[in-house]
């Protein structure tokens, strides 16, 4: 497969949760795609559904309360195109993909490794499972992977337990584990949020180096616009379960279309610019049992119109693939921006 080939098509993905208060629409008709070797950033604030989107792609939605209720996740793998949502979450087919073709690393490096097994055990597990290697070979490969994520003395470190590693080292070990089977896609769910800036920079650089070497595509999930700007080729902005804007990183940062994206960019403090921050008033709506039929961002939006409170905005697409889910871009409504 060559760089630029389509790897993943997510179409109208909806994932819901049953909660005490009713149905929570964590992910609501979200679409995006991913090409070979590129990095897609998914950005949004807590509770916007970005993590659940990633877990849906892995078919790892928390059971039994959550389920994928609509849409498709088309994975164009080595064995042709499959729709991941059509597999049972525990099926053999799904497990062949997980950890082998699509891997994932998580936000909390402190808790994502099992405390009672050695790092080596945990690394070898996936290698032995997917690559059908014996223990000795798997151990060999595990040590190689640790060396690759720049952990010194990999042979000795294999026999260590997670609590003997620092946060940054654990995240490296997680990356080694995720990449040990040469996956096509690496999903990184806030991989550096729990880490210090200097360690964050180490980890992000490492991920970029490994991407250059191994050629996998990355889905980078984060709330940090700085991380997105540094890593992503294209960006999906999420708000309250919706994908509100999708474009190249340059487009999103320099010519954002959705008022939420614009406001978000203005609300982060910039060094050297000491003017008052533009804050977004209010807070994210409670997504339990919301009735649709309006734009969830309207109550916080400076440019909200009547229609925003009455009708859900459709997604508008310019010819260059820059999409936005906002009434301001409807020619019938304004004509100003959409011009």
């Amino acid at each position: 497969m060559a760089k630029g080939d389509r790897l993943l098509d997510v179409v109208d993905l909806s994932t819901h949760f049953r909660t005490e208060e009713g149905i929570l629409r964590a992910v609501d008709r979200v679409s995006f795609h991913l090409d070979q070797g590129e990095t897609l950033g998914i950005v949004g604030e807590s509770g916007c559904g970005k993590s659940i989107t990633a877990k849906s792609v892995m078919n790892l939605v928390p059971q039994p309360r959550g389920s994928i209720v609509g849409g498709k996740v088309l994975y164009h793998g080595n064995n042709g195109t499959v729709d991941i949502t059509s597999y049972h979450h525990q099926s053999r087919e799904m497990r062949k993909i997980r950890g082998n073709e699509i891997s994932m690393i998580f936000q909390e490096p402190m808790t994502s490794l099992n405390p009672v097994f050695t790092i080596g055990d945990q690394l070898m597990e996936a290698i032995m499972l997917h690559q059908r290697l014996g223990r000795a070979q798997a151990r060999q490969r595990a040590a190689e992977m640790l060396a690759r994520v720049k952990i010194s003395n990999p042979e000795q470190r294999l026999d260590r337990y997670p609590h003997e590693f620092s946060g940054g080292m654990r995240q490296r070990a997680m990356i080694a584990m995720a990449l040990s089977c040469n996956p096509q896609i690496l999903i990184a769910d806030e991989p550096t949020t729990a880490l210090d800036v200097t360690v964050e920079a180490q980890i992000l650089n490492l991920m970029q180096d490994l991407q250059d070497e191994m050629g996998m595509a990355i889905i980078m999930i984060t709330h940090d616009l700085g991380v997105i700007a540094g890593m992503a080729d294209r960006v999906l902005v999420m708000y309250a379960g919706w994908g509100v804007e999708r474009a190249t990183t340059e487009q999103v940062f320099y010519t954002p279309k959705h008022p939420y994206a614009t406001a978000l960019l203005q609300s982060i403090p910039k060094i050297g610019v000491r003017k008052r921050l533009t804050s977004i008033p209010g807070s994210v709506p409670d997504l339990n049992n919301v009735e649709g039929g309006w734009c969830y961002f309207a109550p916080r939006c400076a440019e909200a119109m009547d229609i925003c409170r009455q009708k859900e905005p459709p997604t508008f697409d310019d010819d260059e693939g820059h999409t936005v889910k906002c009434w301001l871009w409807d020619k019938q409504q304004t004509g100003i921006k959409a011009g």
Partner: protein
Amino acid sequence: MSSNGQEERQKKSLSQGQLIWRRFKRHKLGMIGTVVVIILATISIGAPFFSPYDYTEPDFGQAYTPPQRVRIRDAEGNFTRPFVYGLTQEYDEVTWERVYVEDKDEKYPIRFFTRSWEYSVLGLFDTDLHFFGVDEGATIYLVGTDHIGRDLLSRIIYGSRVSLFIGGVGALFSATLGSFMGGVSGYFSGKVDMVVQRFVELLQLFPQLPLMMALSAAIPTTWPPLGVFIGVVFVLALVQWTWLAREVRGKVLSYREEDFVLATKTAGANDLYVIVFHIIPNCLSHIIVVLTLTIPNLILAESALSFLGLGIQPPMVSWGVLLSNATNLQTVGENPWIMLPGVFILVTILALNFMGDGLRDAADPYS
């Protein structure tokens, strides 16, 4: 915003207590348990009213009467109001044992709010009103009688007073002691904590029942039944408090480091203020849960002690005392209904456990 905005707002003006109550109402087993507990408590408070017979009055002619069946169909197969048949005694011709036979000619309807033996209400006035009974000349032993012909149901109802009281008061006593010790040890840590913790550990190294047995054996046999009763409550509470003390200590330790407690300290509050206004209110729901779960333990312990003759002494009755008549296998085989007080213990403990579990889930939904 949306049509459910109204509801949103309504939902949101609830205190923690109200939220707990809302969650508790959704817990089915918890609610069932609570209803059973309320019924049991009502019956034990109104024991004389609900007892058809005087529980202390022997009737040697009626010894070991089996439970009488309440019928709603008479011999001709017609449905009528509930009634019992009269009983006649016969002797088995082979074994010469006494057997009770229903006399199908004598029908005695069950009457409600009847009058029979007299009792006094709170020492204020005397009355002879009872919840149910039958006309003079017949008997109504719904769960049979004991070896000297006392109505077992009345005895169970009176026994519930002692059993529930011991459970409730003992739990309250041990909860007070436990919360105090746990709170002090958790909040002040250091040496105080060391001493209390070692003592708690020491007590916990002994299985509760043998320890209670040993302590109960220390209650002088010369004491009157009421004295023994108070002694038993003390013994139970003294052995039980350590459990709560540990839990409260843990809670206090975690709350002590909570930011809201630190915030109060930075406002200049002293330890007493912090404990009274912040730590206790936050531990309270937890303490109530543990208290609820302590009651069944104590009822169980009391019944075991009394069963062994080391607890409540006759003529006072508790469920354990009643069951102590069932130690002889031969007697039980011939009169199996004397095991029935055990069913009451089981139901009570089950109901209290359900209630406690429901409360715990409601108070601490994320643990």
